């Protein structure tokens, strides 16, 4: 049970605070004397600029370079030399053995970062803390040796002491030549000074520029593709103006935190299960998106957390299953939010059904994600909605299916879970990736069973029938559709088809002698649509044959029509046979009653 108010408050408070580290708020003052870096003994808040002690403000970081002088005999001041090795004051006796492969580990703090880290190690000043509760023992929070390779960043803090643009392979970074001049790289190396100016606390946290509206400090270097006005996380969306305002101000800080993260991957905050988990049954939800924000319906358009409590859902994978650049098919099939949504590009335009978008073009919610097309080639980015679904539901990934054991589902004569084969069927299919194969009779287009406004050459979306997050209906259907559980309810088909005024009448052409509407008589005898019809398409690759055996999406459910049920639709009306050689619904051709 989600404690809605507490989570809502938590989420808003979280966003409103922005960065979590104790924030030394900026004032108007740009002087180090008014900042927490005034470490002199007389910095008690009372500013006494005339005090001679104020000259010692700089010494804590700017070390004087004079050697220590021994003035015990004032007439003969002596440079102090160590008593035990007068000739060699401070030298290591390491006889260098030549090994060209020995070099300092990548990303060991260098330059000004050493200075910062020598105080910010938890003693003189707090440093990087360890995350809170570690409920998942397999997920350790380590911030060890800063890895300079951004693609496999292991630290819980923004990496430092790495070259900017040396070996970076993605184009999503601003050219260092055009970087904001306040971001100081040291010979093209990112140090603490890239984001922080230790002398000047006017913006708070000693940042070099004001990061409070839309994270301009982050975007000064990080140029994520698609992070523009149509990205809901940037603009704040249109659903709730006050929440949207906070989201747009937080910018990158909605999801990322540059220091002190709970887990390391992608510097995402709250990405580790915390003390207040959202549970589904007894399993805590593992998703940064849901834990941070998308868990109620008054602030966010879709309450994903609620969807995840429904019986049928895309169950979220344990953390660290998904890898950003995983190849298809991935080593283990999984679903995380980022498998379908690109958080930097995702928007709201053109969803859901009924928008102006023409199928199968992709909606803004799925913008910027890779997909797999009907030929099993990777498309980057996906341009059709089904390509996103094909990441998992096509090819070998598609055949790798597991179902809920409680689900009663059809067992088809021609079985193929590789969806690209079903929607590519040359015999019969719903028009998701291809238009209908044969839709002209006598030269005119025939879409009789559809509602008037849909009677044209158009495709449909996967999400016209399926609800991708979670649904009370099996197979993630949007409405009820009897899969053989006896409810005989076809609200799903009625979305597009004229069930009562066409399908169930003699107009459908499924008649006995032109007078008895056989769909209706089958229905009245308790035969569900799914007993005979297979809605995706009948896979040609798996044996859908011509002529006529699999027309009209006929693909019998062997659980109900009999193990060797056959359909022969090649004869004209009145001569089709749903007969079978052995056991089935009908053992001989022609109209039957039983």
């Amino acid at each position, binding site marked *: 049970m989600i404690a809605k108010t507490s989570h809502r408050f938590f989420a808003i408070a979280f966003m409103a605070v922005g960065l979590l580290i104790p924030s030394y708020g900026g004032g108007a003052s740009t002087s180090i004397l008014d900042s927490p870096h005034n*470490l002199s*003994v007389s910095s008690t808040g009372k500013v006494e600029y005339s005090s001679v002690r104020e000259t010692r403000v700089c*010494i*804590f970081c700017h*070390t*004087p*370079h*004079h*050697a*220590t002088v021994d003035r015990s005999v004032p007439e003969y001041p002596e440079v*102090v*030399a*160590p*008593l*035990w*090795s007068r000739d*060699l*004051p*401070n*030298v*290591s*006796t*390491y*006889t260098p*053995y030549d090994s060209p492969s*020995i070099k*300092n*580990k990548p990303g*060991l*703090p260098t330059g000004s970062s*050493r*200075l910062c*880290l*020598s*105080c910010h*190690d*938890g*003693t*003189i000043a*707090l*440093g*990087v*803390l*360890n995350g*809170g*509760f*570690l*409920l998942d023992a*397999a997920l*350790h*929070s*380590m*911030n*060890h*040796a800063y890895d300079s390779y951004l693609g496999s960043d292991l630290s819980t803090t923004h990496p430092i002491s790495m070259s900017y643009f040396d070996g970076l392979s993605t184009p999503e970074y601003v050219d260092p030549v055009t970087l904001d001049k306040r971001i100081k790289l040291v010979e093209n190396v990112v140090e603490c000074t890239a984001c922080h100016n230790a002398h000047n606390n006017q913006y708070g946290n000693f940042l070099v520029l004001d990061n409070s509206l839309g994270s301009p400090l982050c975007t000064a270097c990080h140029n994520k593709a698609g992070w523009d006005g149509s990205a809901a996380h940037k603009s704040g969306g249109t659903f709730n103006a006050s929440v949207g305002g906070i989201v747009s101000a937080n910018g990158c800080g909605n999801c990322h935190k540059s220091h002190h993260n709970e887990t390391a991957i992608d510097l995402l905050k709250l990405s580790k299960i915390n003390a207040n988990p959202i549970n589904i049954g007894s399993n805590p939800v593992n998703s940064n998106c849901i834990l941070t924000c998308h868990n109620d319906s008054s602030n966010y358009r879709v309450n994903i957390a609620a969807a995840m409590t429904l019986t049928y859902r895309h169950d979220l994978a344990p953390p660290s299953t998904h890898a950003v650049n995983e190849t298809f098919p991935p080593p283990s099939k999984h679903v995380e939010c980022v498998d379908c949504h690109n958080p930097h590009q995702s928007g709201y335009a053109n969803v859901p059904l009924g928008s102006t978008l023409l199928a199968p073009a992709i909606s803004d919610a799925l913008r910027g994600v890779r997909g797999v097309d009907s030929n099993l080639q990777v498309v980057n980015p996906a341009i059709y909605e089904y390509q996103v679904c094909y990441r998992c539901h096509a090819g070998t990934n598609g055949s790798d299916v597991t179902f809920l054991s409680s689900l009663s589902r059809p067992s088809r004569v021609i079985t193929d879970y590789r969806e690209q084969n079903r929607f590519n069927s040359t015999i019969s299919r719903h028009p998701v990736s291809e238009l209908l194969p044969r839709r002209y009779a006598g030269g005119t287009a025939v879409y009789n069973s559809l509602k008037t406004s849909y009677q044209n050459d158009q495709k449909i979306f996967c999400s016209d029938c399926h609800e991708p997050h979670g649904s009370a209906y099996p197979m993630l259907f949007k409405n009820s559709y009897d899969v053989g559980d006896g409810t005989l309810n076809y609200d799903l088909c009625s979305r597009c088809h004229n069930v009562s005024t066409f399908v169930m009448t003699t107009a459908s052409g499924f008649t006995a002698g032109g007078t008895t509407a056989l769909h209706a008589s089958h229905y009245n005898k308790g035969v569900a649509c799914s007993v005979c019809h297979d809605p995706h398409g009948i896979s040609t690759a798996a044996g859908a044959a011509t002529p006529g055996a699999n027309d009209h999406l006929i693909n019998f459910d062997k659980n109900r029509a009999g193990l060797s049920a056959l359909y022969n639709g090649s004869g004209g009306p009145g001569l089709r046979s749903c007969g079978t050689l052995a056991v089935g619904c009908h053992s001989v051709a022609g109209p039957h009653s039983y």
Partner: protein
Amino acid sequence: MIHLLRRLLPVVALLTLCGCASGRPSPVPPGVILLWPPPPQQARIEWLKEFHGPDELEIGKGFWKRLAEVITGEEFNGIVRPYGVHADGEGRIYLADTGAGCVHFYDKKDGVYRRLTGSAKAPLLSPIGITGDGKGTIYVTDSASGTVFRHTPGGEFLEPFIVGVITRPTGIVYAPRTGEIYVTDTANHKIVVFDREGVRKFEFGLLGDGPGEFNHPTDLALDHSGRLIVTDALNFRVQTLSATGEFITVFGSSGDSSGAFNKPKGVAVDSDGNIYVVDSLQDAVQIFDPSGRLLMAFGSRGSRPGEFWMPSGLFIDGKDTIYVADSYNNRIQMFQYHGRQRQPAALSVASMPSGR
């Protein structure tokens, strides 16, 4: 059942073979001796070894643990970013690992390694200083949560021991003579003294640069007469005080050359009373005599044995073995102090050993 055993057999065989493998080869190539000062001068400090985790100390995982890890996956037990070290001189080493939020316990005597953490209710956020009473109880300061934790033998977690009294506890040292525990409160520039029950007895120190005053003091050590040595970090000096906090002597000034302090951290005393101070930004350990005269320094920046990268904590045990927390090299380095009477074994330039 037999089927299961048959499937496990290759696993068991593999693990046994793994167990037979010896420890890592020495990182120091043959013929290189790490001594300071270098020969032909009389050697005082000798490099012993380094370790990043229990393997280099030859504390292996037990057979059953390795078997379990085939299923559960290897537990990471390496050092992340160490600070405080404490050794009891009989092969037991405790290490406060700030980066990993835990205390590593290496017991060479019993061949045991344990990773001690706080509980879920009271996690260890930023462990810094560590000390022990010589009977198995250890005390750890957590500078972020303002708590001093304690672990008693047989306990599972580190439990909060002193809560809410100190704002930012960092250095900590146990005085065996009096049973008192000295804890530095860095944010309030003072040192607070507790008894073994955690009751505050007295405190001393205030912000300033005069005698007995501090500016962000950090590490602590005791010499053999019970006097307290304090790293007065932002006054760039080391002060010696009596056990009750009276000022005795001070030395040090700010600078980046030998004898001066750049960012002093860990402090310790050897059996001859010499004071060792780690300087994090000089990447070296400086040695002073009890009156504060510079004797020598060892170490420079790097990752090879004998080099440091922003070292921090320091401890010297009763046998004059020096433990340096080489923080950003994720390791502890061990050295041996050879006093005026003792000399290291392999010293003569003519006799080069074939390796370690």
